[in-house]
């Protein structure tokens, strides 16, 4: 998955390896689950950022959840940006948090698009090829 490089890490591979006849769409299912849950989390974060006075503790906690979730599917860039965000929370830098949050949103959206394309491709290619592709 060359085009996915940088966006996903080894965890994603692990997910793919878990996929088999008994759970043939496992990866896609998990990814769907992630995006559904993550948009909810993003909304919460956004609301928390705009709230005044800022509650950095809560912000950190929300992003932490998001980070954990993303790491479960191997969303590398998203995960990294979450770490940056948490550092800003730690410094109590609202501006830093805002900037970082924008990046998180962008990375998240990009990842979503790419994965959608990826799964589409896999479906087109067919099961056998999928196995090949997924192993890169």
């Amino acid at each position, binding site marked *: 998955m060359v085009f996915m490089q940088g966006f996903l890490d080894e965890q994603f591979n692990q997910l793919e390896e*878990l996929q088999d006849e008994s759970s043939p769409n496992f990866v896609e299912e998990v990814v769907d689950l992630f995006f559904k*849950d993550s948009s909810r989390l993003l909304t919460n974060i956004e609301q928390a950022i705009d709230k005044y006075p800022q509650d950095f503790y809560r912000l950190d906690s929300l992003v932490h959840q998001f980070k954990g*979730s993303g790491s479960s599917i191997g969303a590398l860039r998203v995960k990294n940006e979450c770490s940056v965000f948490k550092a800003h929370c730690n410094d109590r830098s609202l501006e830093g948090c805002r900037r970082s949050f924008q990046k998180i949103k962008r990375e998240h959206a990009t990842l979503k698009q790419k994965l959608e394309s990826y799964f589409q491709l896999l479906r087109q290619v067919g099961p056998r090829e999928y196995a090949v592709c997924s192993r890169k």
Partner: protein
Amino acid sequence: MAPAEEAGGEFPVGMKVLVVDDDPTCLAVLKRMLLECRYDATTCSQATRALTMLRENRRGFDVIISDVHMPDMDGFRLLELVGLEMDLPVIMMSADSRTDIVMKGIKHGACDYLIKPVRMEELKNIWQHVLRKKFNENKEHEHSGSLDDTDRTRPTNNDNEYASSVNDGADGSWKSQKKKRDKDEDDGELESGDPSTSKKPRVVWSVELHQQFVNAVNHLGIDKAVPKKILELMNVPGLTRENVASHLQKFRLYLKRIAQHHAGIANPFCPPGSSPKIGSLGGLDLQALAASGQIPPQALAALQDELLGRPTNSLVLPGRDQSALRLAAVKGNKPHGEREIAFGQPIYKCQSNAYAAFPQSSPTVGGIPPFSAWSNNKLGMADSTGTLGSMSNSQNSNIVLHELQQQPDAMLSGNLHSLDVKPSGIVMPSQSLNTFSASEGLSPNQNPLMLPSQSSGLLAAMPPSMKHEPVLATSQHSSSLLGGIDLVNQASTSQPLISTHGGNLPGLVNRNSNVVPSQGISTFQMANNPYLVSQNSVGVGSKQPHGVLKTENSDSLSRSYGYIGGGAPLMDSGLLSSQSKNTQFGLLQNQDDLTGSWSLLQNIDSYGNTIGLSHPGSSSSSFQSSNVPLGKFPDQGRGKNHGFVGKGSCIPSRFTVDEIESPNSLSHSIGSSGDIMSPDVFGFSGQM
């Protein structure tokens, strides 16, 4: 249920794993991975639901994997509860890899800590934890008792100690120590001999059984409570020494945590000098409390939180920390380093059920019976000038409690320490803050706040001589601790809980409220030593207006001391609870004297924390015998008898969390938490 059996003997195939995490993505991935490892995986997104499932079916799972950050319950809390109630291995996981958090997990008893994203390889090995635990339990049976001793002798020194003891408990490293003990003790009536597959039948630690356990421990004194003797005292057919040993271990951990918690407000992870004693004391109380059903699970949890130094939302009283520290510092003798909470030298010493202080039955007025219950006779109550005093007194261990009382967090930690510190007398944390203030008084700081009178009962109670007298820490209702502690007391012997606060945390005591000095810190002072504060509290005494322990109580106090508050098995009249503000507990009858030492029996003010233990007349320890229902403080108000220090009952912050502030919080915490009385307290829903 042995996985092996279900899988046809091919362990770990079929091992039952319960995964708890609020993140659905992670749950899905883990479940798939576990299935891939051929385990039997069940997922749950809510900790509370998971706990219910576990309680309904204890044998239904072999191992739990839980996330740390969850919305409905803190993962560490779940960890503790599972460990206490079901004794199952728990593995924590989180995306948070900070060392301090990981350490926290280990201290709370986690078998392992996985960093997300969790890899297959890591999951493949989790069966080792299950096996290890079983193996250790088996060994425990053989060497029951050894652990206890080793814990006790372990030098109190804060983190290390705590860590080591925790680790010991968790890893069974104590095994080696155990070997020294006699190993032939009932080896296994309840279990099969084969370590690898034996599934020791789990003993269900019901409230009654736990209460018996606590009574026994109180009776023996936390220092001397070895499984063998406890078993003998309990005289429960079919119960093995191993069962007792493992239960004791947990109890100790719990106490320790509580102590830590209190003390830890300042020092989260390491209970200053958290000697095992503290843990045991705390544990005793808590358990007793739990056993008596008095401590609401929440309180227990809070208490546990406190102990563990976990951030508890409740209790933390800003002022307390410092005071506690001061107190602790003052005491000097306390093993605790920072926490100081130690002041409460554990009153456990009291031989005769110092715990008697714990009014078993007293359903703790709503609140938790003052910690004092804890304090075993010795607790400072009687002579220990209350915890506060004890702080400085190494002798009094009573204080421990009062630490608890004081601040939900501080108290606990503090108390625990004290508990550990001195087995004698249970320090009953006087109602939360009050005691602290009291304690402060004791300490050289003499904080005006401290008002020894208030809750310092504990502190005060711990006069150097405390040794055996139970300190009644009844300090105000330290919500957190007291709540828990009181219960304990109640459950256990009538030991009046001497609010541990009393002596220990100078700041702690009464922190809440600026310590209502008027309360009359029930300084336990037992022997009338004004010293209650003698050590530090000296100042305290004067502070308190009430200083005088309730006369009415004083009767009881003086004699039974155990009850801080009014003669008779105290507690009721507020023995400790001096809710009536100024009821000084009888303990220190000599108010005047007390003034110096306020610590003693000042009845704890409204909080009821009066710990009155210190019987002025040094009737000391009569307390103990009197079984003062410490916990029972007359309802003065909830906080009353808390014996604990501080307002709001010493109950670990967990319980009281919000209660702490209010004087009545003690009862509050206990009761208000809504379920204090459930036997679940302390995580013991009757089953261990």
